[in-house]
C-alpha cells in the first residue's frame, strides 16, 4: 500500500493510512438452543491526507480503488480544518502483539458442546430460565503507514463469551442477568457462569427499601458503565472543546484520595491492548487520576497538538473514520478491604449491578440518573434479595470527591478492570 501512496507524496504535505483486516466466527445460542453460526471476513483502508495544513479523508474496502481513494482524500483537503501537526517519524517498537496462537485451536464443535453444558447447568438450577449465549473467535491485523516512513503492523486475536439468562415469573416480573469474558485465546469460563448463577440466586426474593439517601455498593460490572462518565472528561478532545469539567485542572485533587484511574494498553493478556496506536505512536501505560488528582489526558495527534501536550498514544480508528482519542484498558485503583468486608459493615443499603438508561442524560457535569435493572438489598451486612422499580440519581463527581471506598478485589468487564465501589449516601427513589 505504501508504494502506491508514495506516488502521491508531492501532491500533499503528509499522509497516513490504516489498513485493517479480520475474520471472525461467532456462534450464537438463543432460547437455550444453538441458533446460528457466522463466518465474517472484512478488510478496508482509510487514507488521511494533509495539504497546505488542511486535512481530507477517504476510505474504501475495494482494494482496486486505492488510487481513487487517495485522490478523493486529497481533493477533500480544501474543505478541511487547519491542522498543523505532523505524522510521526519514530518507528514504534513491536514489544508485543495482543495475539495468541491458541486462537487457532478454537473448535466450533467443542465450543458448542461446552456452551450446551453451561446452558444445561443454568437451566437445571433455574428451570424457567431462558439462556442466550454467544461464543466466538476473531483474528486479524492492523497496519499503519505514513509519509514519514512508518510502516508497521501487528496481529490481534480475541476469544469471547457472553451469557445472558432471563427469568420471567408468573406475575410478569422479569430478571435478566448478563455476564461476559474475553481473552486472547480460548479459555475456561466457569467463573463467569458461577457469578451469573450467584446473581440469579440472590435475586429470587423481592425486597424494598425506602426512598432517601442510602449506602450503595456498585459491582465491577456497574462500575464499568459508570466510569464512562469520568473517562469522557479525561479525553483531550473534550478538554480542547471546553466540555470537560477537568479542563485546566491538571494536578488538582478533585476526588477522594482513594480514587485512581489508569489507561493501560500494555497489559499483555487483554484483547483491548496494543503495541502502538492507530497513528503509529508507541503505546504506554499512564495514570490519569492519581490519588484523586487529575494527572493527565488521553490524546491523539490532533488534540495533543491543540493542547500542546505529547501525544499519549490513544489515537483510535476504524478504517472508515478519522482517529479520535480512545481508552485502551481502564484500570481503577483497588482499595484495602475485600468486597465481603465492605458490605459486612452496611446496615441497610443496596448493591447495584445493572442499570437501564444510564448515560441517556447529560452526564458531562457528572450527573446521572438510572433505573436499577438489577440491584440487591443489603440488610445487616447480608444480601437479602432484589430491589426493583427504583432509580438512583446523583452527581458522580461529588460522590467520588466525598466519602468513598474501593474494594481490594477487582474484576474485568470488557476493557475495564474495576474494584467494587462503595458510597455511603446516594439519592434513591422507589
Amino acid at each position, binding site marked *: 500500500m505504501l508504494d502506491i501512496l508514495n506516488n502521491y507524496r508531492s501532491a500533499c504535505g503528509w499522509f497516513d493510512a490504516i489498513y485493517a483486516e479480520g475474520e471472525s466466527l461467532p456462534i450464537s445460542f*438463543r*432460547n437455550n*438452543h*444453538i*441458533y*446460528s*453460526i*457466522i*463466518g*465474517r*471476513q*472484512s*478488510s*478496508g483502508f*482509510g487514507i488521511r491526507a494533509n495539504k497546505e495544513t488542511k*486535512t*481530507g*479523508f*477517504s*476510505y*474504501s*474496502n*475495494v482494494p482496486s*480503488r486505492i488510487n481513487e481513494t487517495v485522490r478523493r482524500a486529497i481533493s*477533500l483537503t480544501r*474543505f*478541511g*480544518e487547519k491542522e498543523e501537526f505532523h505524522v510521526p517519524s519514530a518507528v514504534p517498537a513491536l514489544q508485543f502483539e495482543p495475539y495468541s496462537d491458541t486462537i487457532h485451536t478454537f473448535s466450533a464443535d467443542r465450543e*458448542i458442546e461446552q456452551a450446551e453444558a453451561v446452558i444445561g447447568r443454568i437451566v437445571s438450577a433455574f428451570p424457567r430460565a*431462558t439462556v442466550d449465549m454467544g461464543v466466538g473467535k476473531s483474528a486479524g491485523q492492523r497496519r499503519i503507514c505514513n509519509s514519514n516512513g512508518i510502516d508497521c503492523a501487528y496481529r490481534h486475536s480475541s476469544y469471547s463469551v457472553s451469557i445472558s439468562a*432471563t427469568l*420471567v415469573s*408468573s406475575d*410478569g416480573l422479569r430478571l*435478566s442477568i448478563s455476564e461476559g469474558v474475553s481473552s486472547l485465546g480460548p479459555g475456561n469460563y466457569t467463573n463467569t457462569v458461577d457469578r451469573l448463577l450467584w446473581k440469579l440466586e440472590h435475586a429470587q426474593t423481592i425486597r424494598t427499601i425506602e426512598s*432517601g*439517601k442510602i449506602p450503595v455498593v456498585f459491582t465491577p460490572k456497574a462500575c464499568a458503565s459508570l466510569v464512562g462518565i469520568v473517562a469522557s472528561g479525561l479525553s483531550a478532545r473534550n478538554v480542547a*472543546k*471546553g*466540555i470537560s469539567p477537568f479542563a485546566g485542572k491538571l494536578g488538582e485533587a478533585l476526588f477522594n484520595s482513594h480514587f485512581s484511574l489508569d489507561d493501560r494498553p500494555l497489559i499483555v493478556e487483554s484483547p483491548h491492548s496494543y503495541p502502538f496506536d492507530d497513528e503509529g505512536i508507541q503505546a504506554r501505560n499512564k495514570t490519569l487520576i492519581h490519588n484523586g488528582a487529575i494527572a493527565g489526558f488521553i490524546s491523539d495527534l490532533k488534540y495533543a497538538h491543540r493542547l500542546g501536550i505529547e501525544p499519549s498514544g490513544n489515537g483510535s480508528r476504524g478504517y*472508515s*473514520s*478519522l482517529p479520535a482519542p480512545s481508552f485502551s484498558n481502564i484500570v481503577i485503583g483497588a482499595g484495602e478491604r475485600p468486597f465481603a468486608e465492605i458490605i459486612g459493615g452496611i446496615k441497610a443499603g443496596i448493591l447495584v449491578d445493572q442499570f*437501564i*438508561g444510564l448515560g*441517556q*442524560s*447529560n452526564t*458531562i*457535569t457528572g450527573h446521572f*440518573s*438510572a*433505573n436499577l*435493572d438489577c440491584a440487591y438489598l443489603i440488610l445487616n451486612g447480608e444480601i437479602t434479595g432484589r430491589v426493583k422499580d427504583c*432509580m*438512583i*440519581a*446523583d452527581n458522580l463527581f461529588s460522590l467520588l470527591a466525598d466519602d468513598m471506598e474501593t474494594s481490594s478485589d477487582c474484576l474485568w468487564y470488557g476493557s475495564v478492570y474495576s474494584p467494587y465501589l462503595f458510597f455511603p449516601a446516594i*439519592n434513591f*427513589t422507589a
Partner: protein
Amino acid sequence: MRTSIEQYADSALDCISSLPCEYAEIRLGSGVVTSIILSGDQIDSVSSGDTTGGCIRILHKGSWGFVTFNDIDDLKKHVKTVLSLSKTIHSATPSTVAGCAPVRARFSTNAIQSCRDISIEEKFNLISAYNDILRNSNFIQTTRAVYNDRVSQSLFVNSEGSVLTYDKSFCGVSLTAVAKDGSVIEPFSESHAGYGGFELARHREESAEAVVKTAVDLLKAESLPGGTYTVIADQRLAGVFIHEAFGHLSEADFIYENERMRSLMSCGRKIANDTLTVIDDGTLPVLPGYIPFDDEGVPPRTTFLIQNGIIHGHLHSRETASMMGEEPTGNGRALSVMNQPIVRMTNTYIENGTYAPQELFESVDDGLYVVDAVGGQTNLEMFTFSSGYAYRIKKGKPGTMYKNVILSGNVFTTLNNISMVANDRKMFGGLGGCGKRGQSPLPVAFGGPHLRINNVLVGGGH
C-alpha cells in the same frame, strides 16, 4: 462509471437455487457515504468513502449459517463456506421460515434533488450556515453540526426466486449546541433525515434556532425533585415512549422466546384504554423507517399493534411468523449486508385520539409537561427514558422549566395509565436510530399526539 449491482442477479440466483437447505438468500450492497462534521469554529471532518459487500444466509437442518464478505465476485466460494459452517450445527428445536410468493421488482428512492448532483461545496455551505446559527449565543461553548448522505444500490435474491433491487438515497442533518455558564454545561440536539435527496437537509434553520434556544434555556433550568407525577408528554416523547416501551415488546422474537411474554402479549388481550391505538408502518414514504421490502424480501405493511386498547398484532420476520403460526409482516431488517435480519420496527406511532391538546392541559391541576426525548431504553418489563426538559403544570398552565427529567416505570402499568390521547400526531426521525442485538443505528421513525399519563415515576434529587 460504477457497475450496477443488478448484474449479479443471475449468478446469485444460480448459486442458491438448488442448495441442500430449507431456505437461502443472498444480499449484496454497494454505496458511497459523504459526511461533514463541524464543531464550534472548527471542521471536525470532511470525508467521503465507499464500501461494497455481501452476505449469504441459509437455513440448514433448522439452524442458521451466515457468511459476510467484501469480495462479491466469487459468490460460489462463499456458498461453499456457508454450507460447510452449517454442517457443524444441529438444533434440537429447529427454526423454520414462512414462505412468500416470489417477487421480481426494482425500487428507487424518489429524490427531488439527487445527492449525487450536489457539489461538496454546496453541502458544506449548507451545514456551515446551520452551524453559524447554532453558535449564535454567548453561552454556546461548542456545537456539532453533521451532514450525512448515503447513496447505495442493493440486490436481494432468495431460493424462492425473488429478485429485488433498490437504488437508495438517505440524507439528513444532526444539529447540536452545547451551552455553558460557569460549571453548568447543557447540550441539546435535533436531527432530521429520511429517504430522499438533498431537499431533506434544506430549510432546517428554524430547528437550529430552537436547538440553541433550548440549550441556553436549560442553563437556567432546575433539577426536578424525584417523585410520582401526572405527565403530559409532547409528540416526540410520545413517539419515543411507544417505540421503547411497547414497540420492542411487540417484536415477536422476544415474544416467541418467552412463555410468559406469549401470554402477556397475546392478541385480544386488553392492555390500555379504548383511546389507544398503536401502529407500525414501513410503507410510509420518506420517513427513516420506510422500506420497499425488508431484508428477507417481504413487503412492508400497516400493522396494528394495539387497536382501541386491545393487542392486535405482532412484528414478524419470516422465522418468527412461521414459529408462531402468524403472517410475516415485513419487519425482518438488518443494519447492513454485514448483519443477519432480525425483527425490527419501521415507523411506529400512536394514532390520533379525539382531544384537542388544550383539553389535556386543562385537565391537569398539578403535573409536568414533559418535552422531547434524549434517549430511551427498556428491559421489556421496565423502561426509562430521558426527556429533553419539562415544565411544571399548575392549574392547566406550564410554568417553571426543569431539566434532568428521567421517566421510568413498568410498561404495562404505564400503558394503562395513558388517560387522554390528543389529535395532533407528528412523526420524527433523524440520523440516529434504534439499537438491538448489536445492530445500531437502524433508521426508524416514531411519533404520536400529546398524551396524558397518570402516576409516572420521575427520578431526581431529594
